[in-house]
């Protein structure tokens, strides 16, 4: 094998906040990691620009008290994380330090932990056999992690084909122990353990193809699943002003979505929101498996008061973990709150380096950075003809709530679903505040998706979605006319149209994230309610005076909402449904 290269060293020559310039004595690589050796600790940093012999490094920690001439050691590696059994249920920081292993109340500068437990024994079952031909990503064996199969794979970094020379027998092993040996074409043998390392900024690409997503990822959120569904392997984003419900919506997705694995990247947001996950997930049940939600979840926490440079690392760390589980043929949901904070971290650094600024002082290549990040999601056919997927949904926090800003615009180009949260809806507590008219899912245009939905939900599903959206638009237009001309300046039918759209709004769109039953609606129930609401919308009602319209429809809405709050098809549910039918009979056209 290649002779071990001599690692370069350097000396600090300039300090501006967490941008440090280092004069280097040898070769270095872009994105190489180095350590700045303070007397009592070392600070991790990443090379972000090279101008021989000077390396510009961003330090993942506070640079307080750092002095000129401090020694710097380069590692020869990019920012890498460790992949292996034991990642699930962990709370990592953006650099994959295990937060639970860190001592004391405060995070100490320069304290780095090993990410995975080196002592724990895993029950290994071989999947391959000696003599098999394998390539990067091939499944060699399997252990059980939180009662889910976790594949042990040929390291993704290896290129070419190999033969399995030896493979551990069924039994318990730690991640340090050798479980396999493989030989390359020239007869060199490589020993493998259950772990491998991967540089987070590089996408893992050991798969066959990425076909277009076609299968629905159920989220239990009606305004998403029914109106603008996201597919397994799809991408979406949630822009919205502060307080409009981005985080509540993402938490709902992380709890309810029908995924095998959920990776949550808390990127530059509030610590208390992460604490909510830490506190609740170990207690909450995953309704599909009956196991605790925490068992399928990994949290990457880089909250707003943690080092700014590590914010960028945190989303890449999370994505790399997502890709790792995708390679096992699992359905992964990755959430990031908020990608704007990551973009702002890039902006702070770009400004410090005095780069030519793009719009709003963001770096010029922001759009490309965001696009290549979203491109790491997808529905994937693996080399062994199994499939895996990463569905990615990020939030965006636009300055001043104005969607015409660089991060929102760049993300709009990259993501296929757009869930715009509206200030007006949030102000009037119409949660989730997703604007039903502005938002879209491009997947609804995919032929494969249409076929899939009509086959799996109902043959009229796609046309029902179109029709319910139509009622919303018609109601919106009616309400504009009423506002201009006054209640009695328009025909009574305008009021009826408006109130029909209110029925859709209150019963389908609005959903109480804090109610045990209403919080999550299975697709079968969504179908039932959509048909119910559509049948009301398609019914003609007669009124003599506009005053009667609101009162009448409020009664209809009330019964439908009570249905939403009741166990599906329970006596209570049916009781309200009977009530509803009676109310409809009162004014239904003959």
């Amino acid at each position, binding site marked *: 094998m290649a002779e071990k290269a001599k690692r370069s060293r350097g000396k600090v020559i300039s300090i501006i906040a967490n941008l440090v310039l280092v004069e280097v004595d040898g070769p270095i690589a872009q994105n190489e990691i180095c350590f700045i050796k303070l007397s009592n600790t070392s600070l991790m940093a990443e090379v972000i620009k090279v101008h021989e012999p000077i390396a510009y490094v961003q330090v993942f920690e506070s640079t307080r*008290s750092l*002095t000129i001439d401090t020694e710097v050691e380069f590692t020869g590696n990019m920012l890498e994380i460790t992949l292996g059994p034991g990642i699930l249920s962990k709370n990592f920081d953006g650099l994959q330090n295990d937060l639970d292993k860190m001592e004391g109340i405060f*995070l100490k500068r320069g304290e780095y932990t090993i990410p995975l437990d080196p002592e724990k024994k895993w029950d290994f079952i071989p999947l391959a056999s000696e003599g098999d031909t394998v390539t990067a990503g091939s499944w060699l064996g399997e252990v059980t992690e939180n009662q889910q199969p976790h594949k042990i794979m040929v390291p993704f970094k290896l290129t070419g084909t190999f033969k399995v020379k030896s493979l551990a027998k069924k039994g318990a092993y730690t991640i340090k122990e050798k479980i396999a040996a493989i030989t390359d074409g020239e007869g060199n043998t490589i020993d493998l353990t259950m772990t491998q390392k991967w540089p987070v900024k590089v996408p893992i690409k050991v798969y066959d193809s990425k076909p277009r997503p076609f299968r629905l990822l159920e989220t239990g959120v009606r305004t998403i699943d029914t109106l603008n569904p996201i597919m397994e392997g799809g991408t979406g984003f949630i822009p919205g002003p502060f307080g409009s419900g981005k985080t509540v919506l993402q938490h709902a997705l992380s709890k309810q979505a029908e995924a095998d694995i959920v990776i949550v990247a808390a990127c*530059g947001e509030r*610590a208390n929101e992460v*604490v909510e996950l830490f506190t609740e997930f170990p207690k909450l049940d995953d309704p599909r498996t009956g196991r605790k939600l925490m068992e399928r979840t990994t949290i990457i926490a880089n909250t707003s*008061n943690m080092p700014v440079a590590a914010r960028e690392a945190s989303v890449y760390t999370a994505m790399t973990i997502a890709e790792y589980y995708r390679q096992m043929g699992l359905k992964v949901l990755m959430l990031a709150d908020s990608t704007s904070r990551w973009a702002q971290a890039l902006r702070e650094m770009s400004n410090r380096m005095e780069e030519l600024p793009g719009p709003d*002082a963001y770096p010029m290549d922001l759009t490309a950075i965001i696009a290549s990040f979203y491109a790491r999601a997808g529905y994937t056919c693996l080399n062994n003809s199994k499939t895996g997927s990463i569905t990615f949904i990020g939030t965006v926090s636009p300055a001043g709530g104005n969607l015409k800003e660089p991060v929102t615009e760049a993300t709009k180009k990259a993501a296929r679903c757009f869930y715009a949260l509206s200030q007006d809806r949030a102000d*009037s507590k119409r949660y989730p505040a997703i604007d039903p008219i502005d938002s879209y899912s491009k997947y609804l245009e995919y032929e494969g998706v249409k076929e899939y939905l009509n086959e799996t939900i109902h043959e009229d599903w796609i046309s029902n979605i179109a029709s319910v959206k139509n009622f919303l638009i018609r109601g919106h237009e009616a309400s504009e006319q009423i506002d201009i001309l*006054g209640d009695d300046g328009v025909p009574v039918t305008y009021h009826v149209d408006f109130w029909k759209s209110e029925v859709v709004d209150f019963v389908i769109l609005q959903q109480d994230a804090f109610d045990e039953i209403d919080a999550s609606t299975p697709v079968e129930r969504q179908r039932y309610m959509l048909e119910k609401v559509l049948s009301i919308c398609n019914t003609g009602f007669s009124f003599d005076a506009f005053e009667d319209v609101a009162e009448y429809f409020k009664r209809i809405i009330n019964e439908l909402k009570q249905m939403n709050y009741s166990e599906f098809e329970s006596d209570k549910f049916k009781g309200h449904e009977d009530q509803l039918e009676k109310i409809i009979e009162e004014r239904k056209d003959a």
Partner: protein
Amino acid sequence: METRAFQKIHTRITNITKATCSLKATGVGYEELAIVHGKLAQVVKIKGDTITLQIFGGTEGIPTNGEVIFSGKPPSLKVSDALAGRFFDSFGNPIDGGPEVEGEEREIGGPTVNPVRRKQPSELIATGIAGIDLNNTLVSGQKIPFFADPDQPYNQVMAMVALRAKADKIILGGMGLANDDYLFFKNVFDNAGALDHIVSFVNSTEDPPVERLLVPDMALTAAEYFAVDKNQKVLVLLTDMTLFADALAIVSNRMDQIPSKDSMPGSLYSDLAKIYEKAVQFPEGGSITIVAVTTLSGGDITHAVPDNTGYITEGQLFLRKDTDIGKVIVDPFRSLSRLKQLVIGKKTREDHPSVMNAAIRLFADASNAKIKQENGFDLTDYDERTLGFAKEYSRELLAIDVNIEIDKMLDTGWQLFNTYFTKAEVAIKEDLVSKYWPEEEGLEERRKKEPSEAKA
């Protein structure tokens, strides 16, 4: 700040701007403090042997041959129980004529609490103000600002909240505080007999603006001492954070950084988050709650300072004058406490969330009716009733001079519902209505008796 005998004195300043100066020196640490011509300064940039210092008091009168002495350490505060009852300037020097505080020296702006060592906030802070307790309940460990125009009585409301909050310590961080306001706080705390558990760090309007940059970190270092070392419940008041941000902008513009929105530095979000995220609940019982003030200009919340603040804090409280009742109220629409769901209906009566939501919804109907009225449209009977309700709701519950227990707020809510609305219009869950709807004759009974009159 003490200086040590062996310290080297530099006397050749090469560059001077309005807020910074540069000189050649070696062995200097980043963020280290120095004294430049008698003025306190901090290292903000090191490039080779050229050190750039930010002069807190401004550079007026600093000569190129002025004396520069480096302290060898970043800004710090001496912490001990002796802080209680004392008033300090931005640097932590006493301004009340009392002696220096002895204690352990701690760097300010210290490290972050490990998120897994936090506890989820769950303790209600009662203020007696219904606009807060009923609609925007505060929780210990929360961070929340008042968004207020400069003519609103935010400091008065904040002082009231502080005194009623039953905190073990109140730490006041005053930035650009007018002398009258400083004296106001001092008097209010004194009259309440509370001075002994209050610590104040004050930068007044007369002090140089850049000095303000140290105030939040000073206040929070003191707060962490009491919350971590002494397990106390600490309430930190920061007024006015907009003036703090203005000082940030002054410094970053002088340092030739590219400004982002509203001439604020691109790092504004991170700078503010570092402060607000010090709010915390510890499992051992100690907590830091931050109540701040962010003044708005012309009510514009899309300006970079309130906008970034809103993205960081756990809600915001809006004060507004209600012209119908001639009083300042806590605006129920734009105010929000994001942690309220951790306590309402759990630590308070079960009907709390329902009463709160129904009342706000009816109040919203009233403002729609008002718009209709202003546009010259006829009002329906329901519209008229919402207007009557809104006026009483505003006076009895939203006004900041209300001071009652939470159960009483809820009872008042039910009474107003009964007076103005039917049960169907209020639309609260059956079981709560049957339990709490008042016995007294209300709208429904009146309607039954004299249907024609009640409808008129």
